């Protein structure tokens, strides 16, 4: 089963176009934001990327209109693939949890360092790096 020889479930060219461009825009925005040097844009960027990948995973079971993910009439092929929906559910839960952890960590780092830069410019020759310079 490959993309090329299963065209029948691809009912609507418009939906295809909208979904594909939505994934593209989300990914582009996510990558752009991840390349910032501050934590807040990076977190937003990772969130956008995870939205993009969720939609992408969802569409990996073919786009279909008016089809439930359950088998109603045996053998007539009027159901959509339930597996990607289960996968995307797992992915959503995981990315939600990870974003929460990341926000807490970023907050912790911000409060400790009093700045939210992602890159560290460590002083190579400082005597004791682990100690707080404020104290």
């Amino acid at each position, binding site marked *: *089963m*490959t*993309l*090329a020889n299963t065209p029948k479930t691809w009912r609507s060219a418009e939906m295809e176009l909208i979904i594909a461009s939505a994934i593209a825009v989300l990914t582009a925005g996510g990558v752009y934001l*991840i390349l910032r040097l501050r*934590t807040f844009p*990076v977190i937003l960027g*990772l969130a956008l*990327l*995870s939205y*993009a*990948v969720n939609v*992408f*995973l969802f*569409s*990996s*079971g*073919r786009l279909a209109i008016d089809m439930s993910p359950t088998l109603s009439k045996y053998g007539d092929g009027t159901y959509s693939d339930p*597996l*990607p929906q289960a*996968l995307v559910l*797992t*992915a959503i839960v*995981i*990315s939600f*949890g*990870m974003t929460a*952890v*990341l926000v807490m*960590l*970023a907050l*912790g*780092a911000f409060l*400790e*360092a009093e700045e939210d830069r*992602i*890159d*560290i410019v*460590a002083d*190579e*020759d*400082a*005597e*004791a*790096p*682990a100690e*707080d*310079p404020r104290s």
Partner: protein
Amino acid sequence: MMHWIILPVVLPAMLAPIIGFVMRYDITLARVASLAGTAVLLAVAIGLLVLAADGETHVYRLGNWPAPFGIVLVLDRLSALMVLLTAILALIVLLHAIATEWDDRGLHFHALFQFQLMGICGAFLTGDIFNLFVFFEVLLIASYGLMIHSGGRERLQAGLQYVVMNLAGSTLFLFALGTLYASTGTLNIADLALRIPEIPQEEASLVRVASMLLIIVFAVKAALFPVQFWLPGTYANAPAPVAALFAIMTKVGAYAIIRVHTVSFGPGVGSTEDVGAILLYPAAIITIAIGALGVLGARRLMPLIAFSVVGSMGTLLVAVSAFSPLATTAALYYLVHSTFATACLFLLADLVVTRRSGDLLKAQPPTVQNGLFAALFFAAAIAMAGMPPLSGFLGKLLVLDALRDPGVIPWVWTAILVGSLFTIVGFARAGSTLFWKSTALDIPEDGVAVTRQASAAEIAPTVATIAILALLAVFAGTVANYLEATTLQLFDRAGYISAVLGLPVEG
């Protein structure tokens, strides 16, 4: 059905919440529970190794669903070996963390530690690539907690980089899985191995893209160029026992490459078999170079060790990238060796650094037990650099011996040999500055802070890793025979597929 196979996942998974909730404020109780759990895990891992030694591929079907529909755990020689490696390392690291009281410098060390073990064991045992993703996330989220254990500005900032890097990697993993599912309709490793060769070469470009994406994802875990740059910062700033445990985390990435790209995309699959040679091989060579230069340029002890880890991952993956049975055997031997060598260096560095002011490579008046630490450092550095008599030498020798194709000799041999030389110089410089030059300094009357002597319990884990490295060298023949059988089983793809999918064995 053998229920033992799922125990390495279930045991830490049950223990971790109990430690986290019930023994939250009682560090003694948490220590006892965590130690007992890890010891049982070690016993189970030994049992699984004995079970897998018969050469069969044991399959555990969760919920008893047949393979491509349900999730399976697969136990063969390779996964049994990796689980055992994890259990031994975990026990050593745990003993060190308890003896040095690292675990008491923040909350939830033991709960996170057990969750980490659950994720690692699960990743080694699973036979489903989406399940592999889930276990990756489990081990990562636990590692985020362990990485920032006991806090501090530098550590939190380095931890943030580590988390961001790995979250981006996870997203890429999902993209790869989506692409793979869209083009094959399955995510079971054995089922993939069956379906991918059926796809005509001209339509297989999506599978090829997925295979390359997966290599990049695993390369993030294995710290391969160009996605290696998170490792030195993370390992150098993590608590040292955690860095020692992370020695197995990079190996998870290497294991995933070995498993997925041998069984599913492996040799003989026209559309994806050259991915290793195209992507992995040059990246591994550059990784060795980066590791060597980093060791030479490091001005602190922890980054020095971290860069030597990068170099050893390069050596490991250059052997993996050949995807031949001989080279994979060498890679597995080197994998076992480098796990313990890395752990040994980090545990020792912890003992040394906590008795000095920081880990800067600068001569300071000698601390207590200078001679003992110097001797241990000498042994550990010999192991890491790959000099006889410890197992690093044999590991590198096996890798060099396996990669004797005239086309690869100039690159591989040059990289590994010159890289080893740089590592030796780097470690020699660090060791002589830290331990030798110190003895030439005058001891000021009152300037030296009185440091506590390391007790036997604190030194024992470090000595244990060195003893394991020595045993690995002494019993190299026995180990190599087991690894050879492991590789044979790994490359017997038909056997794996028929065992997992429950098909009749051909022939």
